[in-house]
């Protein structure tokens, strides 16, 4: 089945992005396809290449980049939300791309299921 994922909160502050990540991993392990992960609102902060969590903590951004590489995931960051919050190509982590909100609507149309993670 084809899933699309919407993530509305940033890394560390809320658990939403953790839950989304573990959901995606489980879906992929079951053979489902993740059509697109769309980052909106503070969710865009998940794509910052500059985050540096403590050694003993999970690295949320790198985890997304790695999952994207392994499974050819399409991680899309909303451009308008990103500009508001200071995410640009210069601090965009590998595997993410910046694009418009139309990518979210398109994912909703093309996927069999859209699941939202937020606050």
């Amino acid at each position, binding site marked *: 089945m084809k899933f699309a994922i919407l993530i509305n909160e940033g890394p560390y502050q809320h658990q939403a992005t953790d839950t989304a990540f573990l959901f995606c991993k489980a879906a992929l392990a079951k053979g489902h396809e993740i059509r697109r992960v769309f980052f909106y609102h503070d969710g865009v902060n998940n794509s910052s290449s500059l985050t540096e969590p403590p050694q003993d903590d999970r690295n949320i951004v790198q985890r997304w980049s790695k999952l994207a590489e392994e499974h050819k995931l399409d991680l899309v960051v909303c451009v*308008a939300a990103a500009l508001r919050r200071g995410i640009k190509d210069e601090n965009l982590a590998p595997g993410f791309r910046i694009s418009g909100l139309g990518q979210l*609507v398109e994912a909703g149309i*093309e996927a069999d299921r859209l699941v939202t993670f937020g606050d």
Partner: protein
Amino acid sequence: MSEGTVKKFMFVNRKAPYGTIYALESLEVVLISAAFDQDVSLVFMDDGVFQLKKGQQTKGIENKNFSPTYRALDGYDIEKLYVEQESLEARGLTEDDLLVDVTVLPKAEMGKLMETMDVVLSF
């Protein structure tokens, strides 16, 4: 595959304006969805009904008043606006207090409407 596909999208707005950005950024998604010729419904319940309150004046908080945009939805062919009756009542509001024409539905009807959707996004 998206060519010609028409899905029923519902945007559920449950948060007050200005305290957080969800109301404003939700509206941005709604406007974009219109360009995709989808079947779009907007729902306002809980504090989301406050988004439609007339008379918003945001100068004092130095924030953008985006409420006039709700009046412009019509021009984007977004005409299905639903408000939950119980939410209005708990906040002392009536249809007359709202910026736009809406369909007021009691909670159970709202729940039934949700069941008919393909994609539900909640903000």
